[in-house]
């Protein structure tokens, strides 16, 4: 089975641009997560979908970050407009979502974003 795939692996954007990151979860998984990873803050949850329904929209990230799950096998994260402080690695993860504790999350390789 294929794992979580993310594209692109690297993205360079000018300040103010709109960028869209893509994620394909593991087939059959019901939960999908978007995280931002920086050295200072570590892994921060941006969005969480269960069976395509948005469960968590990331609080402080709401204004310029928008995640969508167009179908059970594809999700996008749009950042609009980008700012230099958005430079980070963006990770997508999926899990079975069977509702019990201890659900393992399977991560993609991430997209490294640099905003100039």
């Amino acid at each position, binding site marked *: 089975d294929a794992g979580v795939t993310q594209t692109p692996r690297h993205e360079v954007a000018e300040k103010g641009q709109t960028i869209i990151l893509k994620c394909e979860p593991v087939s059959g998984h019901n*939960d999908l997560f978007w995280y931002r990873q920086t050295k200072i803050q570590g*892994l921060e949850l941006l969005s969480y979908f269960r069976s395509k329904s948005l469960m968590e929209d990331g609080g402080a990230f709401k204004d310029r970050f928008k995640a969508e799950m167009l179908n059970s096998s594809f999700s996008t994260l749009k950042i609009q407009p980008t700012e230099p402080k958005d430079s980070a690695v963006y*990770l997508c*993860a999926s899990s079975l979502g069977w509702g019990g504790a201890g659900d*393992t*999350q399977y991560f993609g390789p991430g997209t490294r974003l640099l905003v100039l």
Partner: protein
Amino acid sequence: SQWGEENLQALSIQEGEDVTMNCSYKTYTTVVQWYRQKSGKGPAQLILIRSNEREKRSGRLRATLDTSSQSSSLSITGTLATDTAVYFCATDDNYAQGLTFGLGTRVSVFP
């Protein structure tokens, strides 16, 4: 924050040595998961320990959980250079928001 302390650490050790890393958490959790992230990759789960377990082993890995002190540890015996990575602990204190990850421990194993 879920975490009671800033637990971003860096450890450098020689191949063959044992290493232990710790994390503590503030609120109740039913499980603690440990993940490893190698350079350029996403995190991958190593071991999961439930609140009714004190210890869990998997190969060279040993995880402990002390719910009274709200802390967990991960030990690796006989480290290899390929164990070089950042290790995270994660809890499900509020699974409505997914897992909560600690800042991690960077372990560098030198041949």
